[in-house]
């Protein structure tokens, strides 16, 4: 054996020892919650709270694994075999996709948990530069000549679809349902968008860190988080007169949980979201709780009261998705890149 090969062998052995064992986290009871991007902070806190609650209740230790990504991408991963016990996604349509492709979630999943399986909700608000220099108060101000609007691409981003529908709903009310005028408004609005990012976090980064644009159309919870993490001295939140009631629903992935024997635990995990502690944590992380009566009044103060239109006004996601965002749909008609 040459010196070289001895050394090489030693080096490889060294690497092998350094690695040691792969974390044996599956040995104890674990749950996998597959979620979308902006819930990272919420579930970090909620998982710790639930683990403590479960320990007190049953004496069992439970570890909750967390996976985050774009909502559509996460649904795709569950369809392709990511063994989620529960999914907590941005859009009903993404959970429906799992239902359609795998049958691991029952058809009637929206009826299995309170408030149509929506423990917390959010809405779309405006994040503007400190002091609101462009004087943006409502949707109509977004198409003023010198205003640049940042929103992600509705083709790829769940949040962006809510943005689009919220703008549509406002214009629909403003113009008394005149479809031509509504389409004109939305077309003009998208002419004020210099960059279409693929996801909500990408848009936040564009607005906050690259300093592009005068107003960011954002999830209320993302706007608050950006404000808190990146500087209350730099931004203000503006609530428009009308916005959309955005429901990020949750569901048990029955097929996976049954196979892993975690069904009871996974159900308890989702139900606890509706408890006093779960609701307070949601509010603390800037999600609007579904049951405000159990939530500390101070936490509720930061949610401005505004008129909220639901997706049902658009005939539900099953109708709105193809009509607005399908190929050749309304978005394709109003948005012409480079115009």
């Amino acid at each position: 054996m040459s010196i070289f090969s001895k050394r090489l062998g030693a080096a490889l052995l060294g690497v092998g020892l350094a690695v040691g064992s792969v974390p044996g986290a599956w040995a104890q009871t674990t749950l996998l919650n597959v979620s979308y991007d902006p819930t990272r902070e919420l579930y970090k806190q909620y998982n710790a709270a639930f683990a403590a609650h479960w320990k007190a209740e049953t004496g069992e230790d439970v570890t909750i694994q967390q996976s985050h990504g774009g909502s559509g991408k996460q649904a795709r991963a569950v369809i392709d075999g990511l063994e989620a016990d529960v999914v907590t996604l941005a859009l009903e349509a993404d959970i429906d996709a799992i239902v359609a492709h795998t049958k691991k979630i029952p058809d009637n999943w929206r009826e299995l948990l309170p408030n149509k399986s929506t423990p917390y909700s959010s809405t779309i608000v405006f994040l503007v530069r400190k002091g609101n220099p462009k004087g943006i108060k409502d949707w109509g101000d977004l198409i003023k000549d010198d205003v640049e609007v940042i929103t992600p691409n509705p083709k790829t981003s769940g949040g962006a679809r809510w943005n689009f529908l919220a703008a549509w709903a406002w214009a629909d009310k403003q113009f008394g349902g005149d479809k031509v005028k509504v389409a004109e408004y939305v077309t003009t609005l998208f002419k004020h968008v210099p960059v279409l990012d693929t996801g909500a976090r990408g848009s936040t980064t564009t607005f906050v860190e690259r300093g592009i644009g005068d107003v960011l159309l954002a999830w209320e919870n993302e706007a608050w988080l950006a404000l808190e993490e990146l500087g209350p001295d730099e931004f203000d939140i503006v609530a428009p007169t009308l916005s959309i009631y955005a429901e990020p629903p949750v569901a048990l992935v029955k097929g996976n949980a049954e196979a892993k024997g975690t069904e009871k635990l996974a159900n308890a995990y989702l139900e606890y979201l509706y408890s006093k502690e779960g609701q307070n944590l949601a509010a603390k992380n800037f999600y609007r709780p579904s049951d405000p009566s159990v939530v500390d009044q101070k936490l509720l103060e930061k949610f401005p009261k505004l008129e909220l239109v639901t997706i049902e006004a658009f005939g539900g996601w099953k109708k709105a998705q193809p009509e607005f965002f399908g190929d050749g749909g309304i978005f394709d008609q109003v948005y012409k890149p480079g115009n």
Partner: protein
Amino acid sequence: MSSRAFKNPISESAPVRLTLIFIVLAFLALFVLTPLLIVFKEAFGKGSGEYVAALQEPDAVSAIRLTLLVAAIAVPANLLFGVAASWAIAKFEFRGKAFLITLIDLPFSVSPVISGLVYVLLFGANSFLGPFLKSYGIQVVFAVPGIVLATIFVTFPFVARELIPLMQDQGTGDEEAAISLGANGWQAFWYVTLPNIKWALLYGVLLCNARAMGEFGAVSVVSGHIRGLTNTMPLHVEILYNDYNVVGAFGVASLLALLALLTLVLRTILETRYGSELSAGQKH
């Protein structure tokens, strides 16, 4: 004609040479040095205490471990494969050799996203193999095996690509001499071939390792992004950055940058010391 042939090839005037050198240095500073400095500046942005804490955070530790584990499997596998493939290609004649070389190069020309998706299609829940393996309790995609497979795929040309030109250059003369003196095949390989290629081999392993630890695209597709379980270092960097955790993101990134620097230093040492032995490997 002949007078031009003997002209000093470096005939440009001093200003031209200086300008060229300046352009090269400016480019290097702008595109290589500045980003590198920013990584370390951001990593230590809130002091070295925060930096150390960021690297000791359990999810970061598990990402580092997973990355080391993946490299510890992928690199030796590709070492074995690379030596075997280049040995076969350089020392023997057979039909379809050119095709085999093209196949080995394939991962270089395929987008990493595709490399990842291929494994999802092969081993995912809707594939042919996925449910079969699942019935034996083996989970491939969205688990460590999938990450290892994807990494092996994207790093698989590095060793072979380094060795093939060198071994072809060296020919089979040394081995023939060894065998005519009574060595068996194994002895010829161990005592003759291997010492001839050792530096190029180490060089290939270095490149392979750097890529194995740094791969993002293919691994991202098969990872499932479960924190503390299936996130490698590059994936963890992205997650931390999106979490507004700049110190953590650049802290982990600084480890990857250190790895790159280390690779670079070792590479430079190898090139200056054993340049002639390696030179054949630089032709492609």
